[in-house]
């Protein structure tokens, strides 16, 4: 029997949960097809499909779904409403499935489930329901779920340890910069990666805000913001507090127009005083000369500051 093909768009939450999703689907015997790294074709397609005012990440997401449509049986679109009590996510994560279905009409077949901790809809229940039509034995699903979660935890742990050793071994000449952005911006081939590569060439040592012990970060974020209730933004702010003694600067990458970030970035600029911050807003209009100049001068400032601080000591 031929395997059922399930497509994962390489955008948005894929960059956060891909280890779990891929492993889980593989264990249940599906063929997992992931769309390629974002390229100009995908971006162009996404821009033409999406509502003008959607954020760039959502446009790219739709472009990826479009790439998958002709190649898979189902597209995998989990709907995440809340991950913690009294917290929420950006509303686009709860509307992804509906947006996709309305954009592609009858061409698209989706696998969807809801995670909403506030309404007591835990992930495992959603998964059991969504996959019951493919796998009759619920225990198999639960086992696959647990094994995939375990793998996700372990990989996370390895990543964090790697970042820690990088910080420890960093030589004191190089300024350390915290890349502060959602994983779907940082790791996207068209959005974050070129900037990360460019910054590396500027002889900066980079660490990532999404690689951080989650629980501690969530606690620490309260030092910066009292009322923040977007889980992902909370993690990122927590990372600033967590790494604050080890970094020389922060690069904030933000897609246009990002609802939560628009407010959070502003708050950071007001509240964080002793670390230089630069905010880079990304949109679908290309032309990176201005961007490069800004990044270069930011890198220069950090380097000069580092030398001066070193002399003072």
């Amino acid at each position, binding site marked *: 029997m031929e395997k059922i093909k399930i497509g994962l768009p390489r955008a948005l939450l894929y960059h956060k949960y891909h280890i779990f999703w891929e492993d889980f689907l593989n264990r249940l015997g599906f063929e997992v097809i992931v769309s390629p790294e974002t390229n100009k074709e995908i971006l162009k397609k996404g821009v033409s499909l*999406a*509502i003008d*005012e*959607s954020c760039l990440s959502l446009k790219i997401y739709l472009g990826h779904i479009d790439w998958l449509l002709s190649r898979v049986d189902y597209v995998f679109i989990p*709907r995440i*409403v809340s991950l913690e009590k*009294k917290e*929420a996510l*950006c*509303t*686009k994560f*709860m*509307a992804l*499935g*509906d*947006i996709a*279905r*309305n*954009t592609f*009409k009858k061409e698209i077949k989706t696998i*969807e489930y*809801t995670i909403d901790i506030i309404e007591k809809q835990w992930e495992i229940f959603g998964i059991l329901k969504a996959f019951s039509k493919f796998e009759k034995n619920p225990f198999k699903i639960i086992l696959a779920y647990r094994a995939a979660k375990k793998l996700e935890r372990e990989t996370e742990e390895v990543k964090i340890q790697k970042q820690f050793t990088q910080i420890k071994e960093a030589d004191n000449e190089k300024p350390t910069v915290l890349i502060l952005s959602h994983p779907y911006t940082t790791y996207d081939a068209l959005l974050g990666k070129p900037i990360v590569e460019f910054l590396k060439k500027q002889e900066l040592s980079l660490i990532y805000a999404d690689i951080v012990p989650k629980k501690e970060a969530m606690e620490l974020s309260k030092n910066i*913001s*009292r*009322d*923040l*209730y*977007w889980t992902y933004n909370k993690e990122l702010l927590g990372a600033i507090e967590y790494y604050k003694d080890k970094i020389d600067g922060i690069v904030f990458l933000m897609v*246009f*127009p*990002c*609802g*939560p970030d*628009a*407010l*959070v*970035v*502003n*708050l950071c600029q*007001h*509240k964080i005083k002793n670390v230089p911050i630069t905010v880079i*807003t990304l949109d679908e209009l290309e032309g990176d000369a201005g961007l490069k100049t800004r990044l270069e001068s930011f890198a220069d400032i950090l380097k000069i500051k580092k030398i001066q601080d070193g002399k003072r000591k």
Partner: protein
Amino acid sequence: MEKENNKTKKVCFPHMGNYFIAFKEIVEPLAEIISPPPITKKTVELGTRYGPESACIPFKYNLGNYIEALDKGANFVIQAGGGCRFGYYGEVQEEILKKLGYEFEFFKFPNDYNFLTLARALQKINPKVSIVKILYSLGLAYFKIRAIDKLDDYVRLNIGFEIEKGEFEKTFKLFLKDLEKDKKILSIRRTQARYLKLLKNIKLNKPKNPIRVVILGEVYVVMEPFSNFNIEKQLGAKGVEVHRHSSLSTTIHDLFFNKRVMKEFLEKARPYLRNDTGAHGTETVGLAHHSAKAGFDGAIHIKPFGCMPEVNAMSALHRISNDYKFPIIYFSFDSQTSETGVKTRLEAFYDLLIMKKQKNEQR
């Protein structure tokens, strides 16, 4: 000493449509009120200058209101909270205002509030006032909001057809003035009934089958006429019957008194939506689908630029518009939106509706 402390509290809160007099009711027993001057271009400019660039427009209006009120001498700022981004306005605005050098206290509604927790929180402004009194004033405010909406609904449907121009507006203004004085639930009801009768007595020249348009979208821009360039009035002047569900009283009703309403909207939105899309997005889609089926002539969707839930809803609206051949026009407002642009597009939309109607009638 303590008493003096309370006296020096000068409270301000943002404008929203005609509801200012209702909000006033809540705060009046607690402390002195400094009302921000009516919203003008200057308000938006202040909000835009000091607010984050890509924050949505209600944030900027609120911020502008605060700055103007603080300049007038207020020292206590109140902000509500809710779904989407609104719940996070407070903290960011507080930081911005502090940075501008104002000295004030900031009060934000607790997240997930109901009447009791809200009253408890409000009591902290002035601990001397009893909780019963606060609950009573919340009730008064609610009845005032309901009265305003009830009459506003009638005006909206008929203002386009009055024989003597300006009569509706005149009566409505008198009503607001009288309502402001009412201090008892019973007298609010009486004022409401009296003026509703007066409004109904205004002579109309209404065709049997007028153009009916539904207004959908984000609640702040829907409710604050300044922020949508008086879209309802412009439509009224053209002789259009304007329908609208979103108002403060329905929002309160749906949130606190009857949560089933939200589920009903989701039912109505099928098959275009399977799940809730956040804040008022579901309502928008549900109403659009409903009014397309009910034979309305068209819909106007308004929102602040970048409003997350409404943008989510738009892909469904596009499809409804397509499937039912139901004209929908989309406006999104920010500080750069020009009034002439809105006017021109609205006129074109009106012409389209007229032509469509005539074509249908000829058949």
